[in-house]
């Protein structure tokens, strides 16, 4: 047991496109401490999306070791990965990815539907999470009745409702104007301070990266500088 919530060593990922093998990751190692705020930067094609998918347990590395919150997850089956994602990972996407027909409350409840029943009422839990992001008065609204910033806040509430070990945010401000973007960044950082949630932000924007404690630059499938 060590202090690292994310402990990835020597990750490789090879995609086979027809006859061509594409090496997206070439022996990448990265460690992130509990409660840390980290941004991952890199040009497109550098392998940062692949890294994010692996760190978020959406995908498996071709080889290498990855321990998330003390659990080795590199070789788990699909169903086990789904369970890990449900319990330990929260996602915030650039496109918000809310269910358009469902209310804010139902959207936030969604991850709880896939977790075992846990005594507390899901609805209450979801309501609290929405209040936590300042949308307590918007629980009955559908995504098309909310502004972009508000939608992203619903998404953040959804990511936090399961009380995950890490939150992966993929360009969380990419689809927002700068004012809403700043608010979202503020919210994310506040959540990190209040809940101690480890935050990993993938971004192009150096300004966003400045808000984080550490920036990991990826180039050609390896860590270029930290």
């Amino acid at each position: 047991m060590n202090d690292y919530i994310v402990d990835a060593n020597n990750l490789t990922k090879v995609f086979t496109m027809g006859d061509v093998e594409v090496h997206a990751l070439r022996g990448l190692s990265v460690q992130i401490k509990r409660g840390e705020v980290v941004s991952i930067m890199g040009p497109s094609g550098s392998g940062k999306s692949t890294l994010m998918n692996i760190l978020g347990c959406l995908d498996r590395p071709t080889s290498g070791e990855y321990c998330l919150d003390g659990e080795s997850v590199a070789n788990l089956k699909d169903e086990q990965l789904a369970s890990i994602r449900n319990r330990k990972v929260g996602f915030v996407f650039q496109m918000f990815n809310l269910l358009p027909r469902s209310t804010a409350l139902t959207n936030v409840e969604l991850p709880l539907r896939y977790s075992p029943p846990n005594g507390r009422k899901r609805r209450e839990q979801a309501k609290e999470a929405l209040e936590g992001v300042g949308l307590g008065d918007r629980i009955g609204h559908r995504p098309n009745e909310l502004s972009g910033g508000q939608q992203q806040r619903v998404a953040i509430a959804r990511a936090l409702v399961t009380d995950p070990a890490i939150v992966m945010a993929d360009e969380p401000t990419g689809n927002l104007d700068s004012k809403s973007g700043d608010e979202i960044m503020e919210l994310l950082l506040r959540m990190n301070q209040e809940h101690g949630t480890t935050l990993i932000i993938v971004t192009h924007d150096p300004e966003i990266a400045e808000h984080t404690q550490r920036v990991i630059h990826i180039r050609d499938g390896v860590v270029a500088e930290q």
Partner: protein
Amino acid sequence: MNYMQSFIEASESLLANKMRSGLTVLGIIIGVAAVIAILAIGNGTQQSILGEIQGVGTNLLFVTPGGSEDVSNPKPLTLADAVALADPFSAPSIDGVAPVLNGRVEMNYAGENKSTTLVGVTPGYATVRNVGLSEGQFISDTDFSGRSAVVLLGTEVAEGLFGRKSGLVGEKVRIEGQPFRVIGVLEEKGGSAMGSEDDQILVPMTTAQTRLLQRATPNEVDVIYVQAVNSEAVPQASLEISQILSSRHRIMIGEEDFSILSQQDFLDLASTITGVLTIFLGGIAAISLLVGGIGIMNIMLVSVVERTREIGLRKALGARRIDILSQFLIESSLLSLIGGFIGILLGWGLSVIVEQIAAGSGTPIVPVMSLDAVLLAVLFSAAIGIFFGLYPANRASKLEPVEALRYE
């Protein structure tokens, strides 16, 4: 798993595309309604035909002249044959015997003419064929032996000649120009699959033989109705008839110059015919149900493609394959179940309409909605939803979360 939540979610997503869901459900509705209506009408027809046959009595046998084709010198049935069959010692399984003679005759009364079926009967006919009278009395032994010119009228005949059905005893009518006295009116039986029994008149057989329906052989009869002691004794009675008549006609068993038909034979034939018809029509209806099922599959496939991102998101949030699979299966079976329920109602409505039309045209059919048929339809439509939903749902559940999230 939270089934209530899944159910609500499935209804929501179906309601989001009302037109599409409605048209898909329509396919199932038509299929189920067709199956239900056809089964109900088929069962109703079967029951009404069987009921009619049974109404005549299941212990009844019909003996007619003419048997296997290559019998040399076939003999007709005679009154003496009937008398021999009535012998309780040689034929213990036989309760009653009623030979009859049939023919078409012209009747008239006060200028009204009517053509009808004349049946020459013995006094025993009333019990064997279970004939009731609405007034008057049946042909007596005296009438029979005395070749009396008396007649019993069917209600349709009475209506045709007199314009009324009662108060006719003692009236005089002419049959083929000869005067007959009306001694009674037969009870009304209504139409049947075997021709109307109200459009006939009964006279003593001896009278018919001598005055109205002359035949080549003296005492020849057209049919001998035989009543077995009960319906279980019918096969034994049939055997006894065969033995007695064979010895009387001096022929070998298997080369009979007569045929024996029991009510059971008619029952079997009728149920076979209606059963085959019902299965045949039901099969055609089932094909439309199948087409409806393919409609569901089609829509679900479209829905999976449309919701690829949603599936990716759900997987990212921790949905397992089984969660996605059941989500889509619940949607498709909900579609088909709704269709099934509406289809049952519609099918029931259709069979009621058919009942009305049938009643209006004089052939009463009471559609029988059996619980079996309803259960079958519900189960079948649910099965169709699951079967045709399985492929799209499986496809959805196999999507890779990374790819699905990236899908535009």
